[in-house]
Every structure is written in structure tokens, then in C-alpha cells.
């Protein structure tokens, strides 16, 4: 039982990371109806930017926790800005010229951007894995059984809290601000939104920037949680996050978060109880099962097929 609780905590942490990436997928798919294939690689770039910022500032695990958290927020801010610029540039150069073109074209450019980013980072940063010592270490024991001790680390608490904060801020942004209104309008009917004076291009660009910024925070979390990154982490994390977005219902923000949690839990439990080598198979099979039996996802609206 204790083992189960421990895995549950680990799964929620991993799920938070997937959820943050999934928001980028779900927003972009909601507005322009394309799978932003390069999103997983923006997450990877965010992780690298975070790593470099951490080392540039010389943040180490020796400082106090409060100081560590403050420094990490600064790192997150910088990496959000740079990843946001990446998101903007990708949309501007690779997707916008193809808007209104036939549907496969942006998907192919997205795959091209993904290949480009992976190899760009590999060429500039080297192919070897990058280890990072823990910045926030320690934690406390919440349950002490006779066979297994359940521990929750400060890092895990930080990840979950940061995710909750970002999510609530983001939900506010979408539901209350004029930007959020513009986004929802574009999602419902882009042409009509344009006629009513909404700058559709800016709205879509902002969507990409926000998605990329959230993905870069996820990248920072991944870096801190696993302590090791390489240029290839974006691929599988991207597919799993997309699975999360679909599972939650494409276009639904709480759905993306919920989907992320479910995928994180499935992956962790499968690795813990069956086989860690096949944990990716479990996550991908989940995607297939969901799409076949529940194509609208957990919280999504059913799509009506029109002639």
C-alpha cells in the first residue's frame, strides 16, 4: 500500500509536467486545428535554456530553500521569455505562411521544425546527456510502514504547487481577460472573429507564445526532477503530452491537466508494477484506446461530423 502511495505521488509529479506541455497542444489544436509537432522540442529547448541559466547564475544546491526557490523563479522567467520567442518565431516562419493552405502542409513543416530543433540543439550543445546536481534536495516522510517508507520531496511539492499556480493564472487569462476572449472567439469561428475586429494573427501568435512558455516551465521541472536532459527528450514527452491533451479532450484546459495526470499515473504505475521498458508502450496504447473508444476525451465536446 505504501509503495502504491509513493508511486501515486511520483505519478502526479510527472503528470504535472505532461499537463503543462499538453496545454500548448490543446490550445493550438483548438484554434488552428493543427498538431504542433514541434511543441515537444520547444519543451526540450526550454529545458536546455533553463539548464544554461542555472549554470550561468551559479545556482547550486547549497543555498537555503527559500533562496533556491527565488532563483528558480528567475530561471523560469528567463526561460519562459526565450522559449516564448522560439514559439513566436516557429509560428511566424513555418506555420503562418501556410495558413489556409492544404492541411498536410503545416504538419510537414512542423515535423521539419522538430527535426531542425533537435539537431540544432545537438549540434550546438553536443549529443551527450547533461547532468545537473539537485538544487532543492530533501523532503519529508509522510508515512512509515514496516516495509516501505513514503517520502515526498520538496521538489515534488514545488512542481505541483507551481503547476497549480500557473494553471490558475492561465485559467483566469482565458476566462476573464480580453486576450482570452479573443482566443475563444478565434477557436469558435476564425472568420467571424476577424470580421468583428479581432486581430487573428496576433491572437494565434500569442497562443503559441503562451504554449511555449508553459512548455519551458515544464522543461525546467523535468530538468530539476530528473537531473538529466538530452536533445531527444522532446519527442517522447511530446507524444505523451499530446496523448494527455487528447485524453482530456482537445480544446479543454482542465482536460489537458487531467489528461496529463492520468498519463503520468499510468506511466509510473506501469513502470512500477509491470515493466519499465514497456512504459512508453503503455502510454501509447492508452492513446489508441482513448481515441477509439472515447474520441471526444474526458472533458471535451463531441465533434459533430458535418457534410
Amino acid at each position, binding site marked *: 500500500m505504501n509503495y502504491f502511495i509513493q508511486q501515486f505521488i511520483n505519478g502526479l509529479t510527472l503528470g504535472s509536467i505532461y499537463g503543462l506541455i499538453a496545454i500548448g497542444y490543446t490550445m493550438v489544436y483548438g484554434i488552428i486545428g493543427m498538431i504542433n509537432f514541434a511543441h515537444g522540442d520547444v519543451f526540450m529547448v526550454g529545458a536546455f535554456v533553463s539548464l544554461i541559466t542555472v549554470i550561468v547564475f551559479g545556482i547550486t544546491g547549497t543555498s537555503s530553500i527559500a533562496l533556491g526557490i527565488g532563483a528558480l523563479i528567475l530561471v523560469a522567467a528567463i526561460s519562459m521569455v526565450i522559449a516564448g520567442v522560439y514559439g513566436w518565431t516557429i509560428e511566424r516562419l513555418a506555420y503562418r505562411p*501556410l495558413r489556409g493552405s492544404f492541411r*498536410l502542409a503545416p504538419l510537414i513543416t512542423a515535423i521539419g521544425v522538430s527535426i*531542425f530543433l533537435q539537431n540544432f540543439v545537438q*549540434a550546438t550543445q553536443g549529443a551527450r546527456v547533461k547532468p545537473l546536481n539537485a538544487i532543492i534536495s530533501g523532503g519529508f516522510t509522510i508515512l512509515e510502514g514496516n516495509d516501505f517508507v513514503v517520502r515526498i520531496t520538496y521538489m515534488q511539492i514545488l512542481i505541483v504547487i507551481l503547476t497549480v499556480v500557473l494553471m490558475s493564472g492561465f485559467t483566469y487569462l482565458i476566462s476573464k481577460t480580453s486576450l482570452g476572449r479573443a482566443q475563444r472567439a478565434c477557436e469558435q469561428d476564425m472568420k467571424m472573429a476577424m470580421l468583428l475586429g479581432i486581430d487573428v494573427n496576433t491572437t494565434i501568435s500569442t497562443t503559441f507564445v503562451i504554449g511555449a512558455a508553459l512548455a519551458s516551465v515544464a522543461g525546467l521541472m523535468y530538468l530539476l526532477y530528473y537531473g538529466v536532459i538530452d536533445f531527444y527528450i522532446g519527442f517522447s514527452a511530446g507524444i505523451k503530452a499530446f496523448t494527455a491533451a487528447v485524453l482530456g479532450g482537445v480544446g479543454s484546459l482542465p482536460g489537458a491537466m487531467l489528461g496529463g495526470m492520468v498519463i503520468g499515473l499510468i506511466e509510473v504505475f506501469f513502470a512500477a508494477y509491470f515493466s519499465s521498458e514497456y512504459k512508453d508502450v503503455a502510454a501509447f496504447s492508452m492513446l489508441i484506446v482513448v481515441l477509439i473508444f472515447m474520441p471526444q476525451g474526458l472533458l471535451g465536446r463531441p465533434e459533430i461530423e458535418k457534410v
Partner: protein
Amino acid sequence: MSSTGHSSSSLPAMIKRSLIATVIAFLLFLPTLGIKTSASGGVDGLFLTYRWMLLGVGCGLIFVGRMAYELFWAPKDGEQKSIKAPSSLARALGSSKVAKTVGPVLLVFAIAFPFLPFSDRYILDLGILIITYVMLGWGLQIVVGLAGLLDLGYVAFYAVGAYSYALLSIHFGFGFWMCLPLAGLLAATWGIVLGFPVLRLRGDYLAIVTLAFGEIIRVVLLNWRSFTGGSNGLSDIPRPSFFGIPFNQSEHGFAATFGLEYSSMQRIVFLYFLILALAVFTFFVTARLRRLPIGRAWEALREDEIACRSLGVNTVNTKLSAFAIGAMFGGFAGSFFAAKQAFVSPESFNFMESATILAIVVLGGMSSQLGVVFSAIVMVGGVELLRQLQFLKSVFGNDFDPSQLRLLLFGLAMVLMMLWRPRGLVSTRMPTVFLKDKKTVSAAMISQGRG
């Protein structure tokens, strides 16, 4: 470059826009080009190298590139972006008359290719590679181009074919010609197995599920060590023989039997003709299938699934047959790949392969068979040309690894080519069925890939 930003084409405005692009490039490049992390093996793990020179060069290139764009290519004041008619070349390739002459010319060239004076081992290997991709492209074209089912996991069938040949020949001693139909059959079975659950899915969802299938197969190949050899792969796969006559120096070898002098080139030439024959077979089967009711059902399905269903076309059989036949050709190509390499490992069947094959089909213009040939030559041949980048080592020093740049430029080329020609190189095509007279339809009129 922004949609409203063309208001001024005066020089200061151009410089201003270029400077903005440079600032953005600076932000993009700062943590990648500018600062490098390296593992030192020390206590703290990582240290930084600052490369201000490289960063400066990168930003400078962006500035110059943007200025060049502003001066030469950007639309000028008041110039309207017009919808471009397909260029004469694309139109010519799309029309059946030209295709009827270009096709046979290409085939004759392909047959004569090994005997041309410049064809050495390297060129011939490249030829084999290109034809393999042409064949894979034609196979995937059935699924994506004709039936409009976006498949991102095509490499799975290629893998099934390769492992079928490898395992059957290693464990049962089957020859190549016996394995070939079996591999095709197994791949087709997998096509149906994978196709069946995804019948209800459309468009992007189908794409992501097929991608997941491709990854599942790769992960299984990687981890089922007792059966597939895991990441070490399977080696010592028997090479194909010329109808039972092996290519070696023995008395019963190919050279001795036909009274020729032994040369390792004979096997390469044989492999070349083998893949050429398989590709031509694929071409004719596909071309014939397009004229059969099943082919017309595929195209109808691509254009409008609901209309198709209401006209009484059995969409289940139509989709499954597209998956199965596409997969079968993938399996053939895979078994050729295993025979040629004499070694298979899961690394050969990653997502990059699927992306390359799909890019070849899309760049070829989705449903043009000739287009696939051209785009395969451009994509595979172009990437191969990039291997010649070794000279850059003398410019950037020995730490510089051009092979990484190869894939980087491949990704960039994929983006640029789609921007340049979103509908592929051969973007017009003849309708297979016509009422009174044949009209060439611009691909811009066809809604494709709606799955």
C-alpha cells in the same frame, strides 16, 4: 514580414525590420549558439563555454539574410499576393502526355545506370537507396495520397518486412524469394491489424495513432531481446542469391558459373536490379489498382468520406485494403533492406524514416507517381550530398561534426520546400475518371488528406 508590415519599403524601414529580426535571432541563439554546456567530469558536472564569435556570426547572417530578403524577394508596395498558377514545369509533369514520355525515359536511364562509366560502388549504393525510398514512397502513397489516410507510422511495416526476412532466413533457412512474399503477407496482416482499430479516426487523430503504433513496434523490437536481439539487432542475415547461385568466389558462385571474373560489384549490381524490379512492380500494381474499382473507391474516400459512404462504398474494406496493400509494399522494401544490409536493428526504423517517407510523398504532390521519384531524388540525394560537408572541418576545426548538420539542414529543407511549394513538386494531376474530356486539375482544387 508581418502581414501589415509591408507599408514601407524605404531603406530605413528595411534596416529597422532587419534589426528586429537580428534581436530576435540574438535571443534565440544566445542559449544555444552563444553558450555551450559541456560535461567536464568534475565535481559540479557541467561548465560553460562562451562562444561570442559564433553568436555574432549567427546574428550577422540573420541580419544579412533578412536585408537580402527585404531587398530582393519581399513583395513591394501595393503589390498584391496573387494565387500562383502552377508553373509550366509542374503542369507539364502533371499532364499525362509528358508523364508518358518522362516515365519510360527515367526507366531506361535507371536500367542503364549501373553500366554508365561514372557508376562506382558509392554511386550505385546511392541509387539503391533512392530507389528504395521511391518504392516506399509509392507504397505510402496508396495510403496517404490515394486513400487520404494520413499515416505517420509507415516505418513499422518496413520494420516488419525486414525482421520477417531476418528471422525466417536465420531460423528456418528460407531463401530471399521465399521470404519476400511471406514478408509482404506479414506486413499486410499487420496493416490490417493496425488499420482495423483506427477505422473511425480521421485526419490528425489518425496520424498520431499511427505514429504511436510505429513507436510501439519499435519499442517492442528494442526490448524483446530473446526474439529480436534487442538493440544489438540481428546480424549475419543470409544475402540473396541469383536464383540459388551465391555471389562468392567459390566454384558454384555467380562469377564462376557464368564464366566471369569475380568482382564484388556483381552483387551490388544484382541488388540494384532487384530493388529496381521491386519498385517497377510496385509502380505497375499501383497504377493498375488506381483504375480498378478499388482505386476509385480510395480516391472517392479521400475526397469525401460521407459522400462515399452514402453512395454505397464499403469504407471499411476500402480503408483496410489501402492499409494492407500499402503495408505490403513496405514489407517488400523492408525485406530487401534486410537482405542488402545483412543486419537489422531497431534504430533503422525510427520516426525519422516515417517522416522522410511522408515528406517524399507530400513533396511529390500527394498523388503523382512521377512526383515521388523526383522528390525522392531531391530528398535522399540531397541529404547524401550533405555528407560531402567534410570540408567544413577545415573551416571550423576538428570539433565540428558535419553529420549533425546534415539532419539539421534536412529539417530546414523540409520547411523551406513546403513553404516554397505547399502542394508538392508535381502539383497537378489527371483525374482518373472523367466525364467528357480529360482536364488537368490543379491540386489547389482538391481537398486532400482529410482522412
